[in-house]
């Protein structure tokens, strides 16, 4: 195990953990319910650790990317439905991330939002075109570490640590009306969806194949998932806690994506603001790259086309056309005027519907001795995998009614 590689992998996972959905929902959850939703973040984080590790292990041993698995395990018709649903979900998520990048650039430079959206797409396309795969992920992940300013701000603000600690215990705040209870449940489902976004495993497992992982990489995969995602999740929890401390008491329930940057600003002044905006820029930009590539991977893996950034763009032409086209469609959605928060709400809704179909084939394959040999799921991975699958299924069933009952968490 190469410790430099491992450290970089963990730092990349930390910096790349938070995306626009987590920023929005963590900030809103904290201002609305204080620390009472921290446990949902913690619960969902263990889920992404379990399935992230599983997808990396399957990539390393069975050499199977997620969508190739789906086609074999679910059959063509259901596989096609899953493909279409995940394409829509990832595309909306990608548009939300691109819109988020444009807003942050607008707040940093003062230039018009639409100009920043076009500039963002050009830069994102250029980074994928120019950088080798490992450095695409790493550049955004490492620069996303500016997000650590949110955690440092929390320490500086000296919050009630006991209350934050109690937030890790599963709970429903006492005294909620039926309407507030429904809203609380919607936030819970949205956080599970935002942490377990399907694009994360499509990208992570395809990345494992891009980097030609094998048996020797299994330990690195496990440590990266557990430590990297765990520390990344603490960043999201810091945003939630800052929000409970700073926004809730002054009636702010952040509706504007740039509001979260005020948390470090209130602790460190203008420097805090700039660090926060830079961290958000790279974290959200990285997520835009991941969602777009995840979609291109899905299409090519499903139809058995050449794919991968380890190839020259012209050696995998359909893959190259797919990711460029997806970025352009995402830009079209952003320029159509739909606001980013609305996109985030739809991204979270569509994603939770896709999650069971994403994770079931992986769970089945990771437990299959024929493919995985000595590295099939052990009792811990299998038990956790099925517990999380049932939780995701229940969340998916509840998502649509909750979305309409609460007007997307507003009612």
């Amino acid at each position, binding site marked *: 195990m190469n410790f430099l590689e491992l450290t970089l992998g963990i730092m990349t996972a930390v910096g790349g953990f938070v995306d626009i959905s987590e920023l929005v929902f963590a900030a809103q959850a904290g201002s609305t319910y204080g620390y009472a939703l921290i446990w949902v973040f913690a619960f969902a984080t263990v889920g992404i650790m379990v399935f992230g590790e599983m997808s990396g292990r399957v990539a390393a041993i069975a050499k199977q990317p997620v969508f190739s698995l789906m086609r074999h395990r679910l059959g063509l018709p259901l596989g096609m439905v899953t493909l279409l649903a995940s394409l829509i979900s990832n595309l909306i998520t990608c548009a939300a991330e691109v819109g988020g990048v444009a807003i942050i650039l*607008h*707040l940093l430079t003062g230039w018009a939002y639409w100009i920043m959206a076009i500039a963002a797409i050009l830069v994102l396309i250029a980074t994928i075109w120019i950088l080798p795969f490992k450095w695409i992920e790493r550049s955004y992940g490492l620069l996303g570490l500016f997000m650590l300013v949110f955690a440092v701000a929390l320490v500086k603000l000296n919050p009630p640590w006991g209350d934050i600690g109690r937030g890790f215990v599963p709970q429903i705040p006492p005294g909620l009306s039926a309407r507030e209870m429904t809203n609380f449940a919607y936030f819970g489902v949205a956080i599970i969806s935002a942490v377990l976004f399907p694009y994360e495993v499509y990208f992570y497992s395809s990345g494992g194949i891009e980097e030609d992982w094998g048996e020797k990489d299994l330990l690195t995969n496990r440590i990266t998932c557990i430590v990297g995602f765990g520390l990344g999740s603490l960043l999201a929890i810091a945003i939630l806690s800052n929000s409970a401390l700073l926004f809730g008491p002054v*009636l*702010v329930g952040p*509706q504007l994506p740039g509001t979260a940057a005020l948390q470090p600003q*209130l602790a460190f002044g203008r420097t805090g603001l700039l660090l926060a905006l830079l961290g958000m820029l790279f974290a959200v930009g990285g997520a835009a790259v991941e969602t777009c590539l995840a979609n291109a991977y899905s299409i090519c893996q499903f139809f058995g086309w050449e794919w991968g950034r380890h190839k020259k763009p012209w050696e995998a032409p359909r893959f190259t056309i797919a990711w460029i086209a997806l970025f352009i469609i995402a830009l079209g959605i952003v320029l159509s005027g739909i606001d980013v928060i609305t996109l985030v709400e739809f991204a979270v809704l569509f994603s939770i519907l896709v999650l069971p179909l994403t994770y079931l084939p992986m769970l089945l394959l990771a437990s299959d001795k024929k493919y995985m040999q000595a590295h099939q799921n052990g009792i811990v991975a299998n038990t956790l995998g099925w517990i999380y699958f049932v939780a995701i299924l229940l969340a998916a069933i509840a998502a649509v009614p909750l979305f309409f009952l*609460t*007007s997307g968490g507003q009612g």
Partner: protein
Amino acid sequence: MRCLGIAIALSLVSCTSGPVSDLPAIRDIRSATAEWALINREAGGGKLTKAYVRGMRAAARKEIEDAAAALHPSTSPAARHAAALLALPDDAPVAVLRRHAAALKHIEIALELS
């Protein structure tokens, strides 16, 4: 099962009819107003960049405008607050913005209890 169906139907009705259906829009306006107040407070101390202040104020104003358009009737107390807010200059006094946010919060609470 039947009880569950009725409960869901009742909840749907309660969430989508009458003044209660204005709740999401009122929350949006209240929060955007509170965000605007926070921006103005910090901008007053010179702790923000010009680009950030301009961008956030414009976003808050647009949020209020969009949410106000969803209020019915347009003469409701919340709509009157929204109209008053939109008439304010970008660098409106923090205390005025906070008064509007607090008043909107009271309207929300009253609607939630109704």
